[in-house]
């Protein structure tokens, strides 16, 4: 149980900066997920916390101690690797007890802790099997068990689910969440899958190009992204970005998407957006669920418009429709019974109360 703090942490490989100054405070017992595209420095950051990579600058503090030069074995951390990294010549029991054995823990204490962890993970009947005899999901559990028995200050997960098939991944995701609820230990979890990040994290850290883009709760990131990168990275299907202009007309602001299509900006946002009237390179950010079929009852800040649908993707519980506005491909989520058909015009509705205005030059959400 411990806090983890990163202060201006830098990692340089020769002349390439992989991590360019990361500041992060992780509270005790918190579940933090580092997420980002490949090469964004998330795994490197995790490995620096583990001590598997030296840091080129800054400080890493675990439980109040600066651990910059402390070797991994003395950091009191446990790590679950992407390919599990179980010792193939040891059985499950030996794999799980290896760390405790090295620490010269008394044998009955080891036995107690291994049995307890095995029970939490439901692998008691696998204890005398070799890793080769286990399925992917079982190996994953053993790797977690190996971490749990150590009772470390911090759990580190390095893309632990990416070697599993889609169904098992969802199952193990829930499993990891359950385990964290039982064994409340500070956890840092790295993934490139934003769904995993959203579902598991207390707070999500979105990284891009060696820097933190935004830190926040899953809902914060989803509803109030601060950059275009976060807005586009979190959520599936991704947020729509439509080039637009702001126009002032009769005391109200209008969002002009094309010559023929414009919509009034919600009154609550007028004050915030007035400064950007006439600014070039603006974009409207709108999530697919905020573009729907037209309905009889209309809420404030909702606006109907007609579009020719280009592609229809039925998903069962909803149907995705694709069309083009101002050169941008837009995705909307409509009711399966709304009668969407490719090549046909359809009356759609945009809910601007959830809009984002983005300055495409700086990549910031305004």
């Amino acid at each position, binding site marked *: 149980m411990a806090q983890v703090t990163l202060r201006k942490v830098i990692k340089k490989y020769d002349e390439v900066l992989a991590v360019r100054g990361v500041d992060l405070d992780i509270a005790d017992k918190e579940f933090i997920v580092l997420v980002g595209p490949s090469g964004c420095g998330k795994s490197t950051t995790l490995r620096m916390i583990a001590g598997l990579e030296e840091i080129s600058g800054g400080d890493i503090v675990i439980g109040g101690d600066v651990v910059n030069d402390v070797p991994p074995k003395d950091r009191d951390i446990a790590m679950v690797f992407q390919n599990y990294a179980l010792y*193939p010549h040891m059985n499950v029991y030996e794999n799980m007890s290896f760390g405790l054995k090295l620490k010269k823990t008394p044998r009955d204490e080891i036995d107690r802790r291994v049995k307890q962890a095995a029970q939490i993970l439901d692998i008691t009947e696998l204890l005398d099997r070799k890793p080769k005899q286990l399925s992917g999901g079982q190996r994953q559990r053993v790797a977690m068990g190996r971490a749990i028995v150590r009772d470390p200050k911090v759990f580190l997960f390095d893309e632990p689910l990416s070697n599993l098939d889609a169904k098992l991944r969802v199952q193990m995701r829930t499993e990891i969440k359950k385990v964290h609820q039982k064994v409340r230990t500070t956890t840092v979890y790295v993934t490139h899958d934003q769904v995993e990040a959203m579902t598991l994290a207390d707070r999500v850290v979105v990284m891009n190009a060696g820097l933190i883009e935004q830190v926040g709760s899953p809902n914060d990131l989803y509803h109030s992204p601060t950059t275009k990168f976060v807005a586009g990275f979190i959520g599936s299907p991704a947020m729509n970005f439509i080039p637009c202009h702001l126009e002032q007309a009769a005391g109200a602001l209008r969002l002009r998407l094309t010559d023929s299509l414009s919509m009034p900006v919600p009154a609550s946002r007028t004050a915030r957006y007035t400064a950007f009237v006439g600014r070039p390179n603006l974009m409207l950010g709108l999530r697919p669920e905020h573009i729907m079929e037209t309905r009889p009852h209309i809420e404030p800040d909702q606006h109907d418009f007609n579009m020719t649908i280009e592609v229809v993707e039925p998903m069962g519980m909803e149907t995705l429709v694709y069309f083009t506005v101002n050169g941008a491909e837009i995705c909307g989520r409509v009711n399966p019974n709304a009668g969407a058909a490719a090549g046909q015009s359809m009356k759609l509705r945009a809910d601007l109360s959830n809009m984002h205005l983005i300055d495409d030059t700086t990549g910031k959400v305004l």
Partner: protein
Amino acid sequence: MADIAAPNAAVLAGDRRTGLHKLMQRKSTIAFLMALPLILLIGILVLYPACYAIWLAMLNKSMTKFVGLGNFQFLFKRDTFWDVVFQSCLFAITAVIFKAIIGFVVAHFVHNIPSKGQRKWRGMLLVPWVIPPAMSTLAWLWLFDPAYSAFNWILAHFGIGPVPWLGETGWARFSVILVNIWAGAPFFMIMYLAALKSVPEQLYEAAAIDGAAWWQRIWYVTLPMMRNIIAITALFSLIVTFANFDIVRVLTNGGPLTSTQLFGTWGFKLGIESGDIPLGSCVVLFMVPILAVAASVILRDINKRGSEV
């Protein structure tokens, strides 16, 4: 399929041809035919000489009379034979152990050299193994020369020596073992290096996080992961070292007296130099049961372990 579909009117001769055709089409037949050249080669080069050696070992000195196990009985009664057994075992076991240890250590060093420079080092370290032993042993022979050799010259500077490298039983045994280690360690190095490269890096990382110090990582991760390679390399080297001929022949010719004779060199001395071919092949045949025991022990362990990883 085409055969089955053939019209019933096919004559008997046709049937026979079809049978042969079928036999030729069977996978096992094809496999046998393709392996035949190798089987013949092994038969000519291995089986025939082996059987011939056994046959020779049961003849009298002039090879005119069958004496059964007489030669073996004669050998058992000679002290020199038991000396050779002891010397061969001492030579092979000591040399293999040191070759394995040195190979293991050097493999670790080479493994940790950045990959850019590694090729160069690997190449250089393989040199002792690549040059013909008879030639390199000649160089060692000069180095060991009691009167004007480099070794004794250097030692003299420290007030030590002169060391009778090849002139005294203990030193002579030391010297032949040393040269054998020098020539054989690179083979272990290259085998262990390959094995080291196949151990996943993440296992070491997991062990480091589990709290293993460097020697614990070697003991608990490297060694178990390399077990099979270590066993196979040791077995292979044991056979080759046991049957060593060239190094001893060039360096000491079995001397002083017979104190560095091995099965191979003593068999050669008796059989070729002294003209008692049956007794010589009798000596050499003694390697077979000893190596068979060693091979079965090591290979059984590999089979047992092989199913785990």
